[in-house]
């Protein structure tokens, strides 16, 4: 890939890299898994950048790739434990949310709540929190609008029950 693509990609990443942070914190419990997943997402974005159609919102395209990678990757997550990283040079470095003192307790609580949902509902929840319309969520996930609405309704009930207790 040429220098112009590299510069454009860098600019886009500087604007949207927070998406990676949100997805990995929603899908992984352990910090090293978050690092690994972030690396997978970032490399997938870089290796697919040629296929990006600029007619569409970059953040939507980025979310689709990030969620697809996270859903595929997460399979290994439940059996993993935090272990020291063996890479000398990290491709991506994410601050561990559990040690971030300036990160509000509300945010940590929010990620804990998302972490309890199943993989599909996690994706729905993230896109909903990004203020995507039901139609847009349905398009990104390949579901029907009714299915999305039903699931969001159920998440609301779960949330209400959880914070009532």
């Amino acid at each position, binding site marked *: 890939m040429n220098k112009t693509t590299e510069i454009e990609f860098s600019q886009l990443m500087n604007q949207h890299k*927070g998406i990676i*942070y*949100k997805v990995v914190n929603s899908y992984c419990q352990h910090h090293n898994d978050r690092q690994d997943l972030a690396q997978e997402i970032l490399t*997938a974005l870089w290796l697919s950048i040629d296929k990006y159609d600029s007619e569409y919102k970059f953040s939507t395209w980025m979310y689709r790739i990030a969620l697809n990678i996270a859903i595929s990757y997460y399979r290994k997550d439940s059996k993993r434990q935090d272990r020291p990283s063996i890479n000398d040079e990290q*491709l991506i470095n994410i601050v561990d949310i559990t040690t*971030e003192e300036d990160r509000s307790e509300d*945010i940590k609580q929010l990620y804990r709540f998302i972490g309890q949902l199943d993989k*599909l509902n996690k994706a729905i929840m993230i896109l909903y929190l990004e203020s995507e319309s039901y139609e847009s969520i349905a398009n990104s996930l390949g579901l029907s609008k*009714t299915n999305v609405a039903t699931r969001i309704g159920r998440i609301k009930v779960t*949330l209400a029950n959880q914070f009532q207790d």
Partner: protein
Amino acid sequence: MNLDNLKNTWDKQDEASNASIEINQPLLFSIGVNQQMEKLRNMKIARIAESVFFFIIIVSLWQYIVSDFTFSAPTISAIILNIFAIIGFAGNIGQLVLMSELDFSAPVKDLQRNMYSVFSHKLQVTRLVLLSVPLYMAYTFLGFDVLFSVDLYQYLSEQMVIFYAISTAILFVIAAWVLSQITYKNITTPWVKKVIGYIVGEQLIDMAEFLNNAETA
């Protein structure tokens, strides 16, 4: 707390989220492949090797069929087994096409369904083998002719032929039922989950559960 509260909380973190990530861009730009893509590349190589194997079987069986074409039991057996080999070969080609078309920016359910098809290859091969079980006599007839130049069918009594015909019919019904059950739609059925886990592994169970969940409103 409700979803609107959560939305406000979520919106507030944007700047902090960007600041919590550092990317080593020179290293990124030197990367040509990631784990997921490497895994798919290895699978492509395996599928090509299998395609060559099936192709050799198809050519060998055709050579056997045309070398002495008669409507004998070994020839018909070779035709039947050739059909299975062609299905296997076509399946492999289909897998290669599917792998080359995988698009990670596709809607999540579509990509996950394609990934399931790619990762369930071992399951598909097992299904093919299972489907050929009712026709087990085809292997026997062909084997006897190739190894001993004997047409076993001519030595079978009428009762034996009837026995094999009935056993084939029964096995066919059983195989058809089992095959119809082993899909991701039945992943909540304990024995289906066990079979998929035993043949392919936990990863496919996980994919099946995701797809099954996505298709259930």
